[in-house]
């Protein structure tokens, strides 16, 4: 069970991020929770392509041996850039919400009580 430590870390990251999204009231804390979930997914993608005792897939004066799979690492690169793009749009919308409503509490925005 302790051999699967990267996958347990992925589960812990996603659970903490989900707790921040569901049970917090400040909008900035919800956005931080979304960023935590994205970090957990990226870690999961990188941990999928590792073989025991392998080296990085670089050929410049490599010491020889088996290599890790390069395809999950390439897909993680794309996922990180898309995370940055979504985070930038979310933060600019939060700036506009603060200017219009005057507060960042997510339960006072919709016009319903509590």
């Amino acid at each position, binding site marked *: *069970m302790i*051999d*699967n*430590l*990267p*996958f*347990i870390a*992925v*589960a812990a990251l*996603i*659970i903490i991020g*989900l*707790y921040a999204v*569901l*049970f917090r009231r400040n909008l900035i804390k919800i956005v931080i929770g979304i960023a935590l979930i994205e970090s957990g997914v990226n870690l999961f993608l990188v*941990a*999928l*392509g*590792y*073989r*025991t005792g392998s080296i990085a*897939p*670089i*050929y*410049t004066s490599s010491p020889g041996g088996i*290599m890790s*799979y*390069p*395809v999950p*690492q*390439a*897909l993680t*690169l*794309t996922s990180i*850039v*898309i995370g*940055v*793009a*979504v985070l*930038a*749009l979310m933060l*600019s*919308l939060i700036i*506009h919400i603060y200017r219009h409503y005057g507060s960042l509490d997510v339960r006072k925005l919709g016009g319903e009580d*509590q």
Partner: protein
Amino acid sequence: MNIRTIAAVIFFTIVSVFMIFSALMIHPFGQPDAQAMDQYIIDNTVNETGANNGVTAVVFDYRGFDTLGEATVLFTAVAGVVILFRRLKK
């Protein structure tokens, strides 16, 4: 305790139990299933693309179409942020 809080607690419990069970029952770390596609890429990168970096060869040569989609997403996000902060000139 209204209906929204109870629904959030139930959803959170189901997802966290599912995550922990999946992390314990997935394949052992370091022994993935054999992939014929990755083995072909590792063997033939230097001869076909001439690059010494396996990850860059996959991103820009074997899977260049996904990089085109990612460049489009980045362009759309920058356009959206700049449009949101325009000041109207009279």
